[in-house]
C-alpha cells in the first residue's frame, strides 16, 4: 500500500489556488499550438475543457460517442447550479459554499479542491451569462436564485427545469465556435475503447466509429477524460441509456487508480418503477422539495384515497425527523428515510414502492399559476410518464441511483496516477466526498472544464516543449488495437442464448440489493460471489448478433457491460473494506441508535484508491489521508 501524494500546494487555504496559478509552469501562447490534447466526452466538463483549450491555442481532438456534442447526459440536470454570489444578501460566501460542500460530503473530500471549486463558482455564472444562457430573472432584470438540499441560503441559479440543458448548450456552442475556428477537431459517433500508455505516460486512445465500425488510433501529448459516472452499473438509474464506465475502466486497467467506488448517490426524488421491463428511472428535480411536502400514511394498511387521509393520519417524516432542514435534508439522508418508511410497509402507489411529494399546501399558498411557473415542465413530465396529474394528486417518488462521487483518483491538478491522463467532472472523485449536494454537479463539471484543467494541464505540458507526440505506429498502439479487435471478435463469436440487456439487468439487481442504499458484510460478500458467477455465464452465454462493420448497438453494449462487471465487483469490495457509514455509503453495522450514519474518523478519514492488479478479485489498495486544516470534523446534523 502506498500513500498517494495529492500535490496540494502549501499556504493558506483561501489563497492556495491563486498562489498556485502563479507557481505553475506556463506554455507561451505561441507554443500552445505545438501541443495536441485529446478530450474524451463532450458533456459539461469535456465540452467546456475542449472549448477553453481551443481558445487558448492548443490543438484539440474532442471525441463523443453521441451523434452530436449536444447530447451528453449533463443535459438532463434539471434543478440548477450553485455559486457563492450572495446576490440576495442572505449570508452566503465562498467560505460558506466550501463549508457546506465539505459537510455535505460527510468530511470525505479534499479541502483544497473543494475550496477551489467554491472560488471559481462565481466565474462560471459570469461566463454562462455572457454566453447567452437564459437563467431565470427577477422582474428588475437581475438573476433569480432558489434553495437546494443541504444549504440554508439561496444560491442556486436555474433556467426553468432545464439548467443542465442550457449550460451544456452554452458549452456546446463555445465548442462549436472552436470547431469552426479549426482549433478543435470534433469526432462524433466515436467511442474510446482503449487508452494507450507509453513509458508510463498517456499518449493516445483507440476508438471505434459506431456507424462504420472503423477502428482508429489517435495520439496526443495528453489525454483528458470527461466521460461521466457509473450509475448505470445499477441498470435502473436516472442515467441515459448509453452512459457507461468503459473509458475510465480502460484507463483503470492501464494503471489509473480508482477512488472510492462505493460512494454512489441515490437521489431521493425519482418516479418509482412501474414494472419489470422498465428501462430507466426518471428524476423529478430536487428543487421540487422547496415547495413539495413529503409524507406517507401513518398506517401501513391505509386504504383511503389520498384526499381523504386527514392530517393527523399522515407522517411528514422528514419534517418530523429533521425540523430545521425538513424536506430539504441532503440527498443521502432523504433517500434513506424513504427506504425506512417503504421497508416498514408504508409505501404508496400500486406496488407500495414510493412516498408522496405533495404540492397541495404550495398550491393553496402560492396559487396554481405560481407553482406552474416554477415547476410546470416537471409536472407535465410527471403526467406524461405516470398518467397522473400532480396538481390534483400528490406525486409518487422513490430514490434512484443518480450520481457517483467515486471515480478516477486525481491530484490537485486533476491528473490521474498515469502522468498525462487527466480526469474531469463526474469521471473523477475529487470534490464531493461521500455525498454530493444538489446543484453541485454542474458546478464541478464546468469548474474543472473552464477554470481548472486548462491551467493545470499547462504545468504538465510545458516541460515537453519541442518533443513530438508519440506516433500511432508505436507498438503500444498495435497492442491496444489488437486488444480492442480481440474483444469485439470474442463477443460476436460467443453465440450464447441471452441478450446483453438481460445480463445487465441481473447485474443491476445484485448491486441494488447488496450495494445500494443499505449495505452489510453478509450482503456484500454474497454480491462478491454472485457477480463473478454471473460474469462467467455472461462470457459464455451472451448473444450479440449482427456485424462489427455497421451500427450495432448490441455490440456497443456488450463491451460496456463487460467492463461494468469488473467495476461492480470493485464497488462491492470497496464498500466491504470501508467499515463505517458516511454520506451515500451506509453500512448497516455502523449506525447510531437513531439510524443515522456513523463515521469512523480515526480509521477511515482517507480516500481509498484501488490499483488494477490484473485480476478483478484482488485489486491493490492505496490511500490518501484526508487532512483537515480548516474544518473541524463533526457529526453532520440537519435536525
Amino acid at each position, binding site marked *: 500500500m502506498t500513500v498517494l501524494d495529492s500535490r496540494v500546494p502549501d499556504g493558506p487555504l483561501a489563497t492556495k489556488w491563486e498562489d498556485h496559478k502563479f507557481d505553475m509552469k506556463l506554455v507561451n501562447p505561441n507554443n500552445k499550438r505545438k501541443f495536441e490534447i485529446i478530450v474524451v466526452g463532450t458533456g459539461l466538463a469535456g465540452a467546456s475543457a475542449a472549448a477553453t483549450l481551443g481558445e487558448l491555442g492548443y490543438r484539440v481532438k474532442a471525441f463523443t460517442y453521441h451523434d452530436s456534442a449536444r447530447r451528453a447526459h449533463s443535459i*438532463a440536470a434539471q434543478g440548477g447550479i450553485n455559486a457563492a454570489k450572495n446576490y440576495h444578501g442572505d449570508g452566503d460566501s465562498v467560505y460558506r459554499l466550501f463549508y457546506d460542500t465539505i459537510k455535505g460530503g460527510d468530511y470525505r473530500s479534499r479541502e483544497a479542491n473543494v475550496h477551489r471549486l467554491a472560488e471559481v463558482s462565481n466565474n462560471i455564472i459570469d461566463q454562462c451569462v455572457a454566453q447567452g444562457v437564459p437563467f431565470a430573472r427577477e422582474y428588475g432584470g437581475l438573476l433569480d436564485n432558489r434553495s437546494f438540499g443541504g444549504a440554508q441560503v439561496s444560491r442556486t441559479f436555474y433556467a426553468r427545469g432545464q439548467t443542465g440543458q442550457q449550460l451544456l448548450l452554452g458549452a456546446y456552442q463555445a465548442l462549436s465556435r472552436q470547431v469552426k475556428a479549426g482549433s478543435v477537431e470534433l469526432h462524433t459517433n466515436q467511442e474510446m475503447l482503449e487508452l494507450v500508455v507509453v513509458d508510463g505516460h498517456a499518449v493516445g486512445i483507440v476508438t471505434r466509429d459506431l456507424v462504420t465500425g472503423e477502428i482508429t488510433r489517435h495520439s496526443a501529448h495528453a489525454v483528458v477524460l470527461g466521460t461521466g459516472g457509473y450509475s448505470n452499473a445499477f441498470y435502473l438509474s436516472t442515467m441515459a441509456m448509453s452512459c457507461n464506465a468503459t473509458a475510465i475502466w480502460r484507463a483503470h486497467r492501464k494503471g489509473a487508480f480508482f477512488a472510492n467506488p462505493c460512494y454512489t448517490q441515490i437521489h431521493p426524488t425519482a418516479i418509482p418503477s412501474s414494472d419489470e421491463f422498465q428501462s430507466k428511472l426518471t428524476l423529478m428535480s430536487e428543487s421540487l422539495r422547496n415547495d413539495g411536502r413529503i409524507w406517507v400514511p401513518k398506517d401501513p394498511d391505509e386504504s383511503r384515497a389520498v384526499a381523504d387521509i386527514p392530517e393527523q393520519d399522515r407522517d411528514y417524516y422528514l419534517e418530523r425527523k429533521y425540523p430545521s432542514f425538513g424536506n430539504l435534508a441532503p440527498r443521502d439522508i432523504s433517500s434513506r428515510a424513504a427506504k425506512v418508511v417503504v421497508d416498514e410497509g408504508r409505501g404508496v402507489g400500486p406496488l407500495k414502492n414510493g412516498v408522496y411529494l405533495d404540492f397541495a399546501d404550495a398550491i393553496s399558498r402560492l396559487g396554481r399559476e405560481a407553482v406552474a411557473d416554477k415547476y410546470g415542465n416537471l409536472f407535465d413530465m410527471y403526467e406524461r410518464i405516470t398518467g397522473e396529474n400532480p396538481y390534483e394528486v400528490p406525486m409518487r417518488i422513490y430514490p434512484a441511483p443518480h450520481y457517483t462521487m467515486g471515480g478516477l483518483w486525481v491530484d490537485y491538478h486533476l491528473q490521474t496516477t498515469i502522468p498525462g491522463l487527466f480526469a474531469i467532472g463526474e469521471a473523477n472523485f475529487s470534490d464531493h466526498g461521500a455525498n454530493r449536494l444538489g446543484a453541485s454537479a454542474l458546478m464541478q463539471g464546468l469548474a474543472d472544464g473552464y477554470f481548472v484543467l486548462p491551467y493545470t494541464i499547462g504545468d504538465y505540458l510545458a516541460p515537453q516543449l519541442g518533443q513530438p507526440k508519440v506516433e500511432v505506429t508505436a507498438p503500444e498502439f498495435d497492442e491496444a488495437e489488437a486488444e480492442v479487435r480481440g474483444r469485439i471478435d470474442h463477443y460476436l463469436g460467443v453465440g450464447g442464448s441471452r441478450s446483453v440487456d438481460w445480463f445487465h439487468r441481473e447485474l443491476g439487481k445484485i448491486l441494488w440489493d447488496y450495494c445500494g442504499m443499505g449495505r452489510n458484510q453478509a450482503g456484500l460478500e454474497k454480491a462478491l460471489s454472485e457477480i463473478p458467477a454471473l460474469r462467467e455465464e455472461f462470457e459464455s452465454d451472451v448473444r450479440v448478433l449482427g456485424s462489427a462493420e455497421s*451500427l450495432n448497438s448490441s455490440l456497443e453494449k456488450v463491451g460496456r457491460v463487460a467492463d461494468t462487471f469488473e467495476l461492480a465487483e470493485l464497488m462491492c469490495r470497496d464498500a466491504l473494506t470501508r467499515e463505517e457509514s458516511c454520506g451515500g455509503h451506509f453500512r448497516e453495522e455502523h449506525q447510531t441508535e437513531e439510524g443515522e450514519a456513523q463515521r469512523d474518523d480515526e480509521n477511515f478519514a482517507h480516500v481509498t484508491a484501488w490499483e488494477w492488479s490484473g485480476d478483478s478479485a484482488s485489486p491493490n489498495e492505496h490511500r490518501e489521508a484526508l487532512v483537515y486544516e480548516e474544518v473541524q470534523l463533526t457529526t453532520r446534523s440537519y435536525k
Partner: protein
Amino acid sequence: MNLTLRVWRQAGPDAPGRFETYEARDVSPDSSFLEMLDLVNEDLIAQGEVPIEFMHDCREGICGTCGMMINGQAHGPQALTATCQLHMRTFSDGDEIVLEPWRATGFPIIKDLVVDRSAFDRIIESGGYVTVDTNSAPDANLIPIPKETADLAMDAAACIGCGACVAACPNGAAQLFTSAKVAQLNMLPQGQAERYDRAEHMVEVMEEHFGSCTNMGECEAACPKGISIDFIAMMNKDYRKAKFRGRRSA
C-alpha cells in the same frame, strides 16, 4: 396489450429498405414506447434476428436523440411529447403502428430508424454562439435583462435539436431549429454584437442542407418542446436587415 408493428428496416445508407412486420405481445400500457421496442428487440434476439436500430439515449425528453415517424407523425400522436416520453397507454390493444425514420434529404438514413443529423451542428458552428472566451466575462448581474425577454429567450432555447421539425415539414426545411437559436441569442443583450452576422451565416448554411420554408406550420405542431414559429419571423427580419448592409440597426 398486443400490437402489430410495421417497421422500416434498412441495413445501411446505400442498402435498399423495406417494411417488416413484427408482433409486440404482452405490452404493459404503463411502459414507454421505446420500452415496447426494447421488448420487440429482445424477442428478435431470442429468435436470432438482428434487432431494430433506433435513436435514443436519455429517455426523459431532453437530449433530443430519439425520434421516428409513428403512423406518419413525427414523435407520434401525443402533442409536446418526444418519442421517449410517449407511453403505450396512448395506444389501444390490437393497433397497427407504422414506424419510419425521419424522412428528409438533410437527414440521410444510417440504418433502420437511425438518421444522420450532423447538418444541425454545421448550422450552429456557423454562428450559433456568442464570441466570449473563458475568463473574459463581466459580473453576471452587470447586464439586467427584463424577465419577459429572459423568458422568451428560454422559450426559444428549449429546442432539443431532435429534428422533428424537419421531418414534419413537407419541404424538409430547418427554419424552426435554426430560428430557435438565432432568436434566443439575437434577443439577448449579449448577442447584439454578432446579431446580423449570426442571422446571415446561420440562414445560409441552413439553406445548403435543407429545403425552403413555405409557412406550413407543421414544424410547430410536431415540436416536442412547443417552439413557436414566431421565431422564424424574427429570424427572417434579422436576415433581411443583414442583407441590407449599412442599414443595420436594432
